[in-house]
């Protein structure tokens, strides 16, 4: 039994694993989008650009400052989060009283500026980043080879998602956050500094995108366009899953990554579009999304 529907098993598992890796990125990004939307009521169009920024900064850290992968893993998300703080304090916070369309338009503008800037500086061809030595090679699982770096990406992003879930659902800080998402005025009246919480929330959501960028750097081609290609898929993921629950975002992200991987094996022409087709189907059957509650 080496084949399934004429597809060799190692190839099938290989694609499934690749799908799982992209599913991890979908999960981390849609998680960040959902947290930001919950608190700021803004869809952060710049999320893809910030992911790209994370990857490019990882490359810059190595090329210009000689800082390796581990330093990048620690510092780059912080730098991206700091950038998020600046964006929120200088621009986004002026929009909270307006229709949330303006937030989308503003962050779209920010995404264009970032993409254009990096494109001008680094061109569109991919920047190379080699896999750190510790993760060179692959595990032999008997039925397939699992490259160590991909295993690390899956582990690290699942751990990050779990940590985010834990902080929001199981700590006092998370309780404030959930309360402020539900009713900011009341929480403010209890003496909690809601504006600071909003800034922090944006920083954390954006930091997650930066972290995803660092993880992606050795696994994919680093290019200024990597963010905009991804964000559109992530939007579809968010529409499918709904932004109601953290677990929902993560599960939807992973599942769609796997489905994409499977599509690559069986009908590769549709691999780019399968997520959008599923979105259309979900809209027909369950308009509010699989885990969604309509606001």
């Amino acid at each position, binding site marked *: 039994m080496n084949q399934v529907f004429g597809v060799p098993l190692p190839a099938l598992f290989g694609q499934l694993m690749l799908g799982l890796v992209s599913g991890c990125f979908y999960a981390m990004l849609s998680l960040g989008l959902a947290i930001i939307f919950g608190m700021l009521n803004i869809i952060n169009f710049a999320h893809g650009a910030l992911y790209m920024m994370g990857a490019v900064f990882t490359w810059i850290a190595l090329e210009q400052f000689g800082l390796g992968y581990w330093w990048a893993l620690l510092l780059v998300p912080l730098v991206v989060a700091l950038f998020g703080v600046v964006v929120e304090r200088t621009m986004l916070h002026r929009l909270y009283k*307006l229709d949330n369309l303006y937030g989308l338009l503003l962050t779209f*503008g920010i995404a264009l500026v970032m993409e*254009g800037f990096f494109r001008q500086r680094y061109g569109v061809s991919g920047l190379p980043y080699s896999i750190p030595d510790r993760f060179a090679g692959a595990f032999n699982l008997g039925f397939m080879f699992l490259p160590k770096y991909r295993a690390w990406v899956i582990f690290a992003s699942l751990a990050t998602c779990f940590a985010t879930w834990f902080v929001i659902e199981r700590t006092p800080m998370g309780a404030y956050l959930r309360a402020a998402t539900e009713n900011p005025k009341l929480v403010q009246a209890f003496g909690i500094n809601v504006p600071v919480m909003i800034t922090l929330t944006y920083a954390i959501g954006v930091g997650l995108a930066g972290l995803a960028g660092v993880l992606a750097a050795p696994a994919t081609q680093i290019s200024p366009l990597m963010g905009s290609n991804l964000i559109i898929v992530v*939007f579809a993921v968010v529409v499918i899953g709904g932004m109601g629950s953290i677990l929902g975002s993560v599960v939807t992200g992973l599942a769609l990554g796997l489905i994409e991987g499977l599509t690559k094996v069986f009908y590769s022409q549709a691999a780019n*579009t399968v997520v959008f087709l599923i979105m259309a189907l979900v*809209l027909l059957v369950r308009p509010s999304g699989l885990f969604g509650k309509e606001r």
Partner: protein
Amino acid sequence: MGLVAPFVVYPIFLMHALCFALFACAFNLLLGYTGLLSFGHAAFFGAAAYTTGYTVKMMGLGPAAGILAGTVAAMVLGSVFGMLVIRRQGIYFAMITLALAQLVYFFFLQSSFTGGEDGIQGIPRGHFLWIINLGDDRKLYYFVLAIFLVGFVVIHRTIHSPFGQVLNAIRENEPRAVSLGYDVNKYKLQAFVISAALSGLAGATYAIVFTFVTLTSADWHTSGDVVLMTLLGGMGTVFGPIVGAFALVSLQSQLADKVGSFVTVIMGGMFIVCVLLLRNGIVGELSGLYYRVVGRRPD
């Protein structure tokens, strides 16, 4: 003004701007008058451009019939999109239209009839009504101007009809419109289809003017362009999108050779400035200023 313009300014530039002005006006019907932000309007523009290009080049249709075919294609696509997208409200509307447009983009990229990365080249401009040779830029200009005016009048009539009033009510207060007994989704769908069809008219004309269609016309950057044109000129104003389209098209044609991909940075910067400082757009601010000076409030 429109009649003597081609003797002063390069006609191709004018036609380019007119196509996008119509596109932006059609888009404004949705954003400015119904309050729905679509981030996927390039799909209609592109679908019509490809349909026109294909029917005129491969099937030998005349330019007018080709443009009609393109417009109908955009209308059909708009009906399908519309039925899916009105199922969700608010911010999801933008995300869904963007994702559906990306689906269309990949379809064009992979289909054989679109020529993939190369697009459709060498579309004949042909003759309008068998006699008027549209190969001549000036004659084509008047043809395009006529199409633009037809589209503009349709939009103008739509906005100022009872139907348009209902759209306005939906934008201002959707629950209220529902409670007054309007079938809000039906109105939204109709507005969406009209907007898609007229965006298609613009895209179809664009294909005839430039005699080629490429993937750029269905790209999400094009969707972003039309949003910026409307925002810059002033959403919810009659002339704003036209001003925005002319401003942006001239900016792009001036800068494209000089600064390369830095154009994207400038466009992004304009988005930021418009949202933070100029939310009523150029026309909105100017008319506001006018009424302040004259001392009358706009109704």
